[in-house]
């Protein structure tokens, strides 16, 4: 049988695995606004939305990486590894709190909420303003298996309104 025909079941298997490396970005449980885009406050109806703000902390940075690997052995069978890892962006984020917030292996948006809480400090006048969101990923076919990789990076800053 030609080699290409041996690859067909593998390709079908790979198709079935599509979507196994996906990442979700959400901060739905955060108590602070996490703003995306140039309009950062809800203006009074009919008024402009410009409010004076100043930076209130170090740059906000969040990186998360998802990996799915399927390895097959000779004659069938195989092993699967799937994980989502949020990378700490400063040394203060390597303690037990961070570990507790990043226990889920597959998908855990709580990492992002935890990060927002730490950055904004739960102050009602603080908010996170996202400047850039970058994402990407690859699917790879190797002699010994398949790999699906995805990563996202969010950068921004914590701001606080200037007292008027």
């Amino acid at each position: 049988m030609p080699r290409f025909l041996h690859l067909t079941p593998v390709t079908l298997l790979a198709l079935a695995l599509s979507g196994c490396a996906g990442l979700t970005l959400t901060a739905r449980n955060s108590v602070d606004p996490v703003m995306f885009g140039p309009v950062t406050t809800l203006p009074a109806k009919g008024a402009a939305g410009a409010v004076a703000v100043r930076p209130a902390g170090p740059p906000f940075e969040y990186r998360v990486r998802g990996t799915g690997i399927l390895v097959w052995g000779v004659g069938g069978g195989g092993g699967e590894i799937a994980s989502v890892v949020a990378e700490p962006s400063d040394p203060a984020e390597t303690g037990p709190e961070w570990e507790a917030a990043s226990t889920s292996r597959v998908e855990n948006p709580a990492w992002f909420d935890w990060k927002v809480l730490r950055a904004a400090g739960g102050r009602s006048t603080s908010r996170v303003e996202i400047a850039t969101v970058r994402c990407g990923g690859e699917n790879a076919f190797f002699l010994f298996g398949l790999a699906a990789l995805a990563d996202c990076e969010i950068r921004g800053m914590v701001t606080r309104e200037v007292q008027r």
Partner: protein
Amino acid sequence: VSVRCVTLLFGALLALSGCAGAHYRVSGDGLGYPVSFSRVVHDADGRPLFLGEALEPVGQFVFRKTSVGFLYGVTGTTVDLSDDINREVARFHGEAVVSLRMRTENCSTSWLFPLTALPFYPGCQNLAVSGTVVTRTRAAERAGGSQR
């Protein structure tokens, strides 16, 4: 083991490998409304307005964008969400978006070996964007107006 054998082995492994993907930057530079990943936005005076309290939902949206990459995922594009989100907010006569959610996934076409061994084969990433369009409750509008 000679260098030649190692080189041949490496070449053989490369010949039996393929990879495709894409990278992209998400842009919202043209957004005309406040958009929040969380369930809260600030009003013009810096007061937090929460979904379910001062903000009421008037609609929800979901849409997808696809980013294409070449050279095994090295090249990238910009995905602009501004027009889509502005259109959704206008459609529901809303004032803002909360609970913004982005999910990025690899396209199934990026699995199609041996096509993915070709550097010009297009890999891609799907981005699913969802959110809740909100407007202020009447009580919140009155509270905002009374303080000015």
